[in-house]
């Protein structure tokens, strides 16, 4: 009975190692190899050949891919700041010591445990041309608002999906901020009170600097989620109208599953992964840059 008992070590590690190897590391490496081939899901009689960088050259001229990538970037630029700010606001709000703050905390996180497919279905009904949101806008504008078909309009479909995504996801980041807020020692605020700092100054000079690492984490993880955008756009608009909600993941799905072109879909996957990798590296960089984290 030693801590270096080889047999025990092997038997404890083997199940996870085999599963990760077969269903994560192998497909991950295969994506790189397949991206240089013309592999089909159902192999063609001519077999699979290496095609060099042909797939990557094709990506360069793929207008649909560019549209998808542009939409993902727009989603990041709009949703990430809004969602992060709202999450922080909510966390500060439910961190105020009043009766019932746990109740409100629960209400704000309920959407995060509601499955995205269900959320998409409910909001499709809310966004109906004769639906509740149009009705509400007509009422508060005293009838000036003319109902619009949010999800069938190129200028409103994507913003509508963004709003819904924030509604669904913000509670999760709120809880992360809340945990970080509760770790800031009360003595910091007490000292600031004695020095005569007002609430705004306390927020700027205590809360925000103390939340730097958490904020970085939230921004990066929301950005990565934004690049993985799929379910909402698949269910609500399928990328339309006129590709205004098309995303990179939707393109990968269509190439692999509709066109059965595994080789080309793999090259898109590799590019997708490189984007995620760059974002993750930036996170490590920023976090290491600030202070000694753990």
């Amino acid at each position, binding site marked *: 009975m030693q801590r270096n008992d080889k047999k025990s070590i092997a038997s404890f590690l083997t*199940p996870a190692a085999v599963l990760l190897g077969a269903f994560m590391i192998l497909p991950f490496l295969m994506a790189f190899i397949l991206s240089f081939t013309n592999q089909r899901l159902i192999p063609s009689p001519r077999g699979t050949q290496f095609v060099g960088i042909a797939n990557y050259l094709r990506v360069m001229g793929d207008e649909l891919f560019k549209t998808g990538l542009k939409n993902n970037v727009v989603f990041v630029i709009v949703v990430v700041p809004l969602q992060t700010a709202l999450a922080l606001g909510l966390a500060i709000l439910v961190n105020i010591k009043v009766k019932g703050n746990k109740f409100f905390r629960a209400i704000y996180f309920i959407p995060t445990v509601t499955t995205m497919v269900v959320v998409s279905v409910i909001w499709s009904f809310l966004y109906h041309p004769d639906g509740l949101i149009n009705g509400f806008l007509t009422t508060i504008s005293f009838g000036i608002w003319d109902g619009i078909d949010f999800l069938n309009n190129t200028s409103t479909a994507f913003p509508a999906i963004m709003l819904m995504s924030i509604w669904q996801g913000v509670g999760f980041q709120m809880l992360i901020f809340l945990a970080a807020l509760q770790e800031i020692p009360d003595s910091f605020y007490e000292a600031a009170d004695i020095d005569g700092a007002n609430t705004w100054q306390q927020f700027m000079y205590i809360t925000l600097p103390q939340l730097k690492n958490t904020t970085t984490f939230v921004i990066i993880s929301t950005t990565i989620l934004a690049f993985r955008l799929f379910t909402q756009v698949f269910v609500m608009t399928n990328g339309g109208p006129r590709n205004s909600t098309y995303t990179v993941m939707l393109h990968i799905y269509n190439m692999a599953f509709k066109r059965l072109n595994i080789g080309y879909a793999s090259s898109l996957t590799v590019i997708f992964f490189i984007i995620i990798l760059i974002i993750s590296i930036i996170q490590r960089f920023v976090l290491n840059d600030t202070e000694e984290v753990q």
Partner: protein
Amino acid sequence: MEYKRKRKILAYIMMIILSIFFIFPLFYMISISLNPDETAILKNMATIRAFFPAEFSLKNILDVFERMPFARFLFNSTFIVSTTIIIGLFVNSLAAFALARFRFMGRAFLVSFVVALMIIPFEAIAVPLLLITNRLGWLDSYIVQIVPFIANPFYIFLLYQFFKSFPSELEEAAIIDGASWFGIYWRIALPLSRPILASVAILHFLMQWGSFLWPLMVTRGPTYRPLTVAMEVFFGQYPRNWGDIMAFAAMMTIPVLLLFLFLQDTYVNTVSRSGIK
């Protein structure tokens, strides 16, 4: 004092306005799902009356059971999710225990390797995984929705951090008493790790229960179809019957919401844990 009271009232007003924003879609879903009159649903969908149907009944719910094998979908999802979680807890905690409590060459490297694997999103392996599972003849089955999702580097890492925090005396007494390593893991480490096991189970649940892209790719007919894909297929059938659609959505959502409200503190702890990446 006056200032503090004003601040509290302001906080309440904001909290209530925000709660309306976060809760109205779910109330809307429930009200529509209980409204048996489809004409009334369409007539009142844009007004406050949508929230208060003239009559309540379970007609839509019965319709859902009649129009499709809902019970089958529910079973599929429940079976896939629970099997993945249970086997996953076992497999991931075994690996984490070995990384945290054993001493061997390459241990530190393996830990950083697991951390590196956490960066790979599922979407980056979905396409080759489709090819692999297709070759294995696994398409349209339970196994294709369970086995690839058992081992997970993030859960191994969370469990590893927890096991690492135990003092080294933990096993020493047991070792002297002649316990096996598996006995120490099973009878000492696991019972001490209930909070982290609960967190991992919750994260695993949310991931698998909401899983959509993968079952969309690998299921063909209704036999192995989970609730998420069944919801999407039903939603895509015209003419849409909103009462039935919302009944499906509500049946899929309400039990989970109740479970999470019941487990509120565990869920809150879980999310804060997932933030310390």
